C-alpha cells in the first residue's frame, strides 16, 4: 500500500523475492537434481539442503543490509517518503530539469536578480534624493555668486562713474 514506507516496501519486496526463489528451489527440486546422492544419503541431503537455504538467505540478507548501509538507503527512503507526503496535495507533475542548463539556471538566479534590482532601485532613489538636495544647494550657490558678481559690478560702475566725474572736474578746474 502506498502508505507503507519505502523501507518496508523494499524489505518486503526483497523478502518476497527470496521466498519465491527458495520456493522455486524447493527440497523436491533439490532432490530431483541430486537424485543419486539423495538415494545414497537421504538425511544428509535434507541437512545439506537446510544449510543451503539458511546460507543463501543469510548471505543475501547480509548483502542487502550492506547495500542499504553503503547507499544510505534507509535515510534516503525516509526523506523520499516525507517528500511524497508533502507533495500529496500537488496533483500535476512537478518541475523537472529541462535538459538545457541555461534554462534551468534562470530560476536559480532569478531571486538574486530581483534582490539586486530592488537594492539598485532603493540605492538610485536615495542617490536621486540626495543629488536633488545637492543640486538645490549648488543652484543657491550659483545665485549667491551671481548676486555677489552683480553687486561688485554695480559698485565697480559706481566707482567708474565717480572717477569719470572726477576726471571731468579736474579737467574743469585745470583748464578754466
Amino acid at each position, binding site marked *: 500500500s502506498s502508505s507503507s514506507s519505502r523501507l518496508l516496501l523494499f524489505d518486503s519486496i526483497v523478502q518476497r523475492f527470496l521466498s519465491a526463489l527458495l520456493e522455486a*528451489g524447493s527440497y523436491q527440486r533439490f532432490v530431483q*537434481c541430486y537424485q543419486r*546422492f539423495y538415494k545414497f544419503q537421504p538425511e544428509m541431503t535434507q541437512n545439506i539442503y537446510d544449510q543451503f537455504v539458511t546460507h543463501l538467505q543469510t548471505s543475501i540478507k547480509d548483502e542487502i543490509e550492506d547495500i542499504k548501509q553503503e547507499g544510505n538507503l534507509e535515510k534516503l527512503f525516509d526523506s523520499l517518503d516525507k517528500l511524497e507526503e*508533502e507533495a500529496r496535495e500537488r496533483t500535476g507533475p512537478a518541475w523537472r530539469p529541462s535538459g538545457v542548463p541555461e534554462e534551468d539556471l534562470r530560476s536559480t538566479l532569478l531571486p538574486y536578480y530581483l534582490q539586486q534590482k530592488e537594492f*539598485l532601485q532603493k540605492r538610485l532613489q536615495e542617490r536621486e534624493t540626495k543629488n536633488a538636495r545637492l543640486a538645490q544647494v549648488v543652484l543657491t550657490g550659483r545665485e549667491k555668486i551671481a548676486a555677489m558678481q552683480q553687486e561688485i559690478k554695480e559698485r565697480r560702475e559706481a566707482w567708474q562713474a565717480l572717477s569719470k566725474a572726477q576726471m571731468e572736474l579736474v579737467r574743469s*578746474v585745470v583748464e578754466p
Partner: protein
Amino acid sequence: MSVDPMMYEAQFFGFTPQTCILRIYLACQDYLCEVMLVVEKVMMKKLESFPNCDISPFQIRESTEKCLLFLKERFNVLFCKMEQMLLKLVLSVPQNVLLPKDKVHEQYPCTKEEFEFLQKETEQLQQRCKAEAYAREALLAELEEQKQVQAELEKILQWFDGLDNVFREHGNSSLKESFAFMVQNARKLQDVKNEIELKSKKLKL
C-alpha cells in the same frame, strides 16, 4: 525500448536506481553460485568417506549444474519482477514530488524573455546609479569651486567695504556725497581764485 535514465532519481539518491538493482543482482547471483559450490563441495567430501560408492564427482557436478541452471532461470524471472517493483515503488521519485533543492523552480518560474528583461532592467538601474554617482561628484566639485569663487568675491566686496569705510571714518556718509562736497569746495575755491585774480588786475590798472 528506450532506457529511462531516471536522472531525477540519480540526483536524489546520488546513484542511479539501476546501479542499485545491478548491485543487488550481482550480489545475489554470486551468492547463489557460491552456495551451490559449497553444497557440491560438502557432497564431494561426504563421498570421499565412502570409497566404494558408485556416485562419481562428475555426476555430482552434473547435478549441481542442473540445479544451478534451474535456479538461475527462476532467479532471473523473479529478479526481473523484483526489479520492476523496486524501480516503480521504492527507487522512483513520484512525478508530483519536487526535490527541495529544486523548489526555486517552482517559486520562480520564468521565461527567457522575462529573465533577459530583468537583466536589462538591472543593467539600466546600474547605469543610472553610476550616472547619479557621477552627477554627485560633479555637484560636489562645483560646490567646492563655488566656495573658492565666493571667497574671492567676498574679498573684493570687503575691499569695496574698506574703501567706503575710509570715507565714513572722515565724517562722510558715503563716497558720492563726499565727492560732491569736494566738488563744491573745489568750485568755491575756483570762484575765490577767479575773484582774487580779478581784483589783482584792477589793482595793477
